[in-house]
C-alpha cells in the first residue's frame, strides 16, 4: 500500500472517515448479524421441512413466521447498507472539496508570490516619483498637485494589492499545529468580547452557552481563536438589526464540536458548496476578499478537524467546527 497523504490520514481526517464508512466497516461492525443473515434461512428451511413432515398446520405457521423474519432482517440490512453508502458519498464529496481547496490555495499562493515583487517595485517607483515631483516643484515653482494626487492614488491601490497578496500568502501558509490544553469556554468568551461591542451597535444579541463541564481540548490555541473569531464576525455580518448569534459547544469521547448559529439571511443552496472557495464573496467589491471562510477551512483542517455548514435561506446558518480530542502528535 502506498503511503497515504499525511494531511488526510489524521484521526477525523476525510480519508479516515471515508474508510470507516465503507463496506469494510459494515462487515467489521456487523459481522455477527451478517453471519446470521447467511445462516438463518437454510436453518429455518430445514425446520420448515421437518415441520411439514410432522404436521402441515404447523408448517404453514412456521413458513409465515420465517417469511416475516427474513423480510424484516433483509430490510434492516438494506437500511444500514444504504446509510453507509450515503455517508460514503458525503465524505467523498468532502474529500474532493478539500483537495480542490488545497490546489486552489497552492495556486493562489504561487501567484501572490510572483506578484509581490512587481508590486514592491511599483511602490518604490511611486515614492521616487513623488520625491522627484517635490524637487521639480521647488525648482520650477509650478503646481503639480494633480500629479501628486494621482501618485497618492497609485500608492493607495498598490497598498490594497499588497494587502491581498499578504492575505493570500498567509492563507496558504502551512501551519504545523502546536498542541496545548485549551479552555474552550474561556477562548470563546475572550473572542466574543471583541465582537460584543460591534454587536451591541447593531442591536445583535451574541449569546454563548457552553456546558460548564466542557473538557479541555488539546489543540492549537491561536488557530482556534482565529477560526472562532472569523465565524462570529461572519455571523455578525449575516444578521440584521435585532439579530441573534449563539455559540455552543459539546464534546463526546472522540470529538468536540463548536457551533456558531445565526438567524441571518442564510445561504442559498447553490452557494453552499462555494462558500469555502477562496475569493468567493457575496459582498460588494472592496468590502471583503472572500478569504475568511476558506482560511477557517484551512485552519480547521490543519487542526485535524472539519468544518460543516447548514443553512436555510431566510432562517439562518450554522457553522460547526468538529475537532478531534486526541490528535496524534505530528511525527
Amino acid at each position, binding site marked *: 500500500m502506498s503511503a497515504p497523504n499525511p494531511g488526510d490520514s489524521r484521526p477525523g481526517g476525510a480519508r479516515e472517515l471515508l474508510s470507516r464508512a465503507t463496506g469494510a466497516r459494515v462487515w467489521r461492525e456487523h459481522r455477527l448479524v451478517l453471519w446470521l443473515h447467511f445462516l438463518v434461512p437454510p436453518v429455518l428451511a430445514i425446520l420448515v421441512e421437518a415441520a411439514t413432515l410432522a404436521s402441515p398446520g404447523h408448517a404453514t405457521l412456521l413458513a409465515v413466521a420465517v417469511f416475516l423474519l427474513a423480510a424484516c432482517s433483509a430490510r434492516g440490512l438494506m437500511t444500514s447498507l444504504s446509510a453507509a453508502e450515503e455517508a460514503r458519498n458525503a465524505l467523498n464529496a468532502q474529500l474532493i472539496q478539500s483537495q480542490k481547496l488545497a490546489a486552489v490555495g497552492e495556486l493562489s499562493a504561487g501567484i501572490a508570490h510572483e506578484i509581490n515583487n512587481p508590486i514592491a517595485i511599483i511602490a518604490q517607483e511611486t515614492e521616487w516619483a513623488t520625491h522627484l515631483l517635490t524637487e521639480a516643484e521647488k525648482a520650477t515653482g509650478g503646481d503639480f498637485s494633480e500629479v501628486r494626487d494621482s501618485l497618492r492614488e497609485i500608492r493607495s491601490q498598490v497598498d490594497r494589492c499588497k494587502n491581498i497578496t499578504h*492575505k493570500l500568502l*498567509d492563507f496558504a501558509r502551512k501551519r504545523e499545529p502546536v498542541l*496545548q490544553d485549551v479552555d474552550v469556554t474561556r477562548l470563546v468568551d475572550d473572542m466574543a468580547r471583541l465582537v460584543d461591542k460591534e454587536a451591541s451597535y447593531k442591536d445583535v444579541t451574541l449569546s454563548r452557552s457552553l456546558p460548564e463541564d466542557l473538557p479541555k481540548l488539546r489543540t492549537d490555541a*491561536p488557530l482556534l481563536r482565529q477560526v472562532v473569531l472569523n465565524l462570529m464576525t461572519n455571523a455578525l455580518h449575516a444578521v440584521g438589526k435585532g439579530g441573534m448569534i449563539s455559540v455552543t459547544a459539546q464534546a463526546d469521547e472522540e470529538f468536540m464540536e463548536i457551533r456558531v448559529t445565526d438567524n441571518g439571511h442564510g445561504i442559498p443552496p447553490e452557494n453552499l458548496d462555494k462558500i469555502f472557495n477562496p475569493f468567493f464573496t457575496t459582498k460588494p467589491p472592496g468590502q471583503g476578499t472572500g478569504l475568511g471562510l476558506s482560511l477557517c477551512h484551512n485552519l480547521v483542517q490543519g487542526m485535524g478537524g472539519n468544518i460543516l455548514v447548514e443553512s436555510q435561506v431566510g432562517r439562518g446558518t450554522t457553522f460547526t467546527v468538529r475537532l478531534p480530542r486526541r490528535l496524534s502528535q505530528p511525527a
Partner: protein
Amino acid sequence: MDINILLVDDEADFVETMTKRFRIRKLPVTSAGSGAEALKLLDQQDFDVVILDVRMPGMDGLEVLRQIRAKRPLTEVIMLTGHASLDAGMQGMNLGAYDYVLKPADFDELLDKVRRAAERKALNVSAQSRG
C-alpha cells in the same frame, strides 16, 4: 520557567507598574516605549513573549506585529487593546498574535496568557530542533 518578556507601550506609568509586578514574580521584563524601539531590541536579542499595545503614536501596533512575525516567527505576541476593537482584534489574530488582553489589564489574566504563550514558544522551539 524563565520567560523573557518584552513590554511595548507608550504609557510610562503602565509600563512601570507592569514591570514591577512581573519582577515580583521573578519574571524579567524589558520595556520599549515605541514600536521602532521594540523592533531594534528584537534585532539584538530573542524574547519569548512580546506584550504589545495596539495603539501607539508613530508605528501602529499591527505594523509592529507584522514585522515581529517576520523577524522572529517563534516569538509569541500578546496584544493589548484599550477597547474591544473588533477590527484590530481580527487583524491581530489573523496576523498571528497569540492572544489579546483588554486594558486595563487584569494582571493575573495577563500573567496566565504570558505563561501559555511562552509554553507555546517552547513547544515550537523543541519541535524545530527535532527537525
